[in-house]
Structure formats: C-alpha cells, structure tokens
C-alpha cells in the first residue's frame, strides 16, 4: 500500500508539489487568524459545488414548476431537505466569511503593494458571491422570491442612463415573470459559478505568488523589538489548521441545516399587492436600510437614484483604496484608512441589524 502511494506520487509529481508547499512559509503573529478565511471559503464553495448539482437533478427551472419542484425536494426526495438546507446555510456562511475576509483585509491593509490586483479580484469575488446568493434566494419562486425579485431588480433600475436596460435585462421583460426566473437560473448555475471559479483561480494564484501579507503594525512592532517575524511552513502547519477549521465548519453548517432547515413561503399570487415591509435577503439589508433613510428628494435628485450613486461611489472608492492609501504603500501606518475600514464595518453591521429589526 505504502509503495503504491510512493509510486503514484512519483508519477504525478506529488513530491515536488509537497516540497513546494513546504518551502511556502506563513508568518505567525496576532493577525494569523485572518489567513484561515481563504481556506474556509474554498471549503464552503466546495460544499456549494457538491450540493448544487444534487439539487439540480430535481429542480425544474420554469415558472409553473419551480415552486412545486422545491416542495418535492423538501418532501419526496430522500435527504432533499438536508441537501437544500446545507446548500442554503453554506451559502449564507460563505457570504459571512467573504465579508469577514473583506473587512479583515481592508483593516489590516493586506492590499498593499504588490497585492493591489489580488484585492481587486477579491472585490470581484465579493460581488459575485453576493449575486450568487441573491440569484439562489429567488429560485424557489415563492411569494418571498417574487417580491425580492421586484425589489431587487428595481435597484439597478435606479442607476442613471443604463438603469432601465439593466432592469429589463435582469427581468427578461418589463415586469417580473417566467423569463426572470430563467435568467436568474442561468446566472445562478452557469455564468456566476464559472466566473467565480475563474476569479478564485486568479486570486489564489496571486496569493501564492505574493505570499501572505504581514500588517504594517506587526512589522513595526517586530522592528522595535529587533526581532524577526516567525514563519511556519504552509504544509503541514497551515494545511492541518485548515482541515480542522473545515471540519468544524461542516459541523456548524449541518447543525444549522438540521435545526433550522430552509423553509418555503406560499405560492406566488401575481395579483396580490406587495405586503408592507418587504425586505431583501440579509446580505443586502444594509443597502436597503441606507436607501430607506434617504429622503424622497435630495438636492432635487430622486432619493433612490441619489442613494445608488453615493453607494456606488463608496464601493468604487473602497475598490481603489490600494491606489490612494499612499502611506500603506510606503509601509507606514495610515490611521485614516484604518478608520475608514472600521467605519465601513460599523455601518455595514449596524445597518444590517437595523434593517433586520
């Protein structure tokens, strides 16, 4: 058995891969915990890629059959409730971990030179994961999905100039209907996962090329103490930690899936007016809440348009932070950008909580 493994490893070049992994060193300091987020994200994506196709065997992507097929998955398909719930919870936890990864990178300024493109690919990943979450949320095509589609597709509709086209493209027509479901299904199972896999590939490759970033504060601290930052090899040290994290994550996902399985709202009634207080899924609650606070008209501009423009500009600014944070680029402390990072995190959390309540 051992010889067989050795023989195979020689033929597939496992030795050189392991040797390379052992040469890859990971810095050890008080912010090391943030290095584990990437591995956790990959594991959650793996869960998605396993449970997603299993659901695809039973899901019927048409307006008149989608709702019934989700019911069948829940009731008739063996372990269908579990697979759907694991898919649902792993996607939600994935979004949480993506946000943690994003804010930790922003606050510890891991975007510093030469990692600007890694940061941009990370931002793109965040967008793709959010759209994947949203497009999956509407696939049961129940009442909640219908109103979420109406509200959600209205938001890009408020974008000046291209808004109307964007809204019609997403809806597949002037209103939410059968075509909308087909479009979101195609995006959820085809376009978005493919794009995400490509972006993740580039992101992981760049992380491997540049190695892990050490926060400026840690570098300064070690310089002051005239000490060198300790390093440990990626394999086996980081790998085993990743395995432990993934096992615990699996337990958490399955526990949530068993104790709080995914539900289903009543069937769509196209004639029914939208009830008061229709809310998007939790990861868009912060946008919803901010837009809700903005008055109907601001400086003569429609409030919603004003909000979308301001939020887009803020997102654009965050995306280009590596190119404006000059101090960090020179390996100097930049408290202003730490403040911006912390404020962004507080705004996100507070608005999400208020939006939920």
């Amino acid at each position, binding site marked *: *058995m*051992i010889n067989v*493994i*050795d023989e195979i*490893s020689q033929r597939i070049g*496992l*030795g050189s891969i*392991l*040797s390379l992994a*052992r*040469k890859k060193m990971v810095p050890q300091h008080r912010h090391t915990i943030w290095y584990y987020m990437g591995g956790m994200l990959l594991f959650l994506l793996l869960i998605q890629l396993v449970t997603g196709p299993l659901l695809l065997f039973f899901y019927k992507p048409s307006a008149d059959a989608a709702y*019934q097929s989700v*019911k*069948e998955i*829940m*009731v*008739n398909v*063996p372990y269908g*409730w579990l697979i759907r719930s694991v898919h649902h919870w792993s996607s939600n936890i994935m979004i949480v971990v993506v946000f943690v990864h994003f804010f930790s990178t922003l606050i510890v300024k891991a975007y510093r030179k030469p990692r600007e493109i890694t940061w941009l690919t990370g931002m793109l990943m965040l967008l793709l994961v959010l759209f994947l979450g949203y497009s999956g949320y509407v696939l049961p095509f129940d009442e909640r999905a219908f109103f979420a589609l109406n509200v959600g597709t209205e938001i890009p509709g408020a974008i000046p100039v291209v808004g109307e086209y964007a809204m019609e493209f997403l809806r597949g027509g002037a209103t939410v209907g059968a075509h909308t479901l087909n479009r979101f299904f195609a995006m959820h199972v085809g376009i978005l996962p493919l794009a995400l896999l490509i972006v993740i590939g580039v992101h992981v490759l760049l992380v491997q090329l540049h190695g892990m970033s050490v926060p400026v504060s840690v570098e300064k601290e070690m310089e002051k103490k005239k000490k060198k930052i300790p390093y*440990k*090899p990626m394999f*086996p*040290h980081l790998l*085993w*930690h990743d*395995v*432990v994290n993934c*096992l*615990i994550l*699996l*337990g958490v996902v*399955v*526990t949530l899936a*068993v*104790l709080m*399985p*995914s*539900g*289903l709202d*009543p069937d769509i009634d196209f004639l029914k007016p939208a009830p008061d207080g229709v809310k998007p899924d939790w990861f868009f609650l912060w946008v919803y809440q901010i837009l809700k606070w903005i008055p109907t008209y601001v400086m003569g501009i429609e409030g919603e348009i004003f909000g979308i423009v301001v939020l887009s500009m803020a997102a654009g600014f965050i995306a280009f932070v590596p190119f404006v944070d000059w101090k960090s680029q020179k390996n100097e402390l930049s408290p202003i950008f730490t403040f911006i990072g912390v404020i962004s995190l507080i705004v996100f959390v507070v608005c999400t909580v208020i939006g939920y309540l």
Partner: protein
Amino acid sequence: MSRFNIPGFIKLFSVTFLFLMVSFITIGTLTGFCTEQEISTLEAVEVKDDTDEGPVEITLSEVNNAREVSRIRVYGLIALWAIIVLCVYLVNLQRKDDERLYQDGYYSKDDE
C-alpha cells in the same frame, strides 16, 4: 517511514473513513434509517384515464412536517459531531507529529 510521511496521512484518513462508515451503518441499522428507502422501479408506461387526478399537490404543511427536527435527526447530528471531534483529535496528532518532524529538520533534509 516513507519519503513524504504519507503513511501517517493515509492512516489518519483510513481510520476516519472506517469510523465514519461504521457509525453511519450502526446508527442507520439501530434506528431503521437504512430501511426507510426501499428499492423501487420506475413505471415504464403511464396509463391515464378520466379518473386520473394528475400529480398530487404537496401542501405547505407537508413541507413544514419535512422540516421538523425529529429524534433521528438529532441522533445523526450527535454522530456527526462525534466523528468531527475524533477527526479533529486525529488531525491534531498528525499536526504535532509533522511539526516535530519539521523541527527535527526532517523536511529540510527531504528537500535537499
């Protein structure tokens, strides 16, 4: 000892896999979990007549029943966590062993 300390790796996953299988089958057998799903054949010809009411509509209450946290699901959850705890313990053993090998310079010798 193999060149890349693979035996430990293989042992770890063999034990884990074995434990997982044994636990699943034991729990399944004890609770009748495995016998719930009987092998069935698909009907080759669908005969329709005037009395055929079409596919039975699944109600929301049936969906909610399927979501109920039954005792068997809790048992399954406990079994899963038992496996996870065991796996974490084994992985930690392997990690400590690998770190010892690393400190002894085993890997650096290996790379030369």
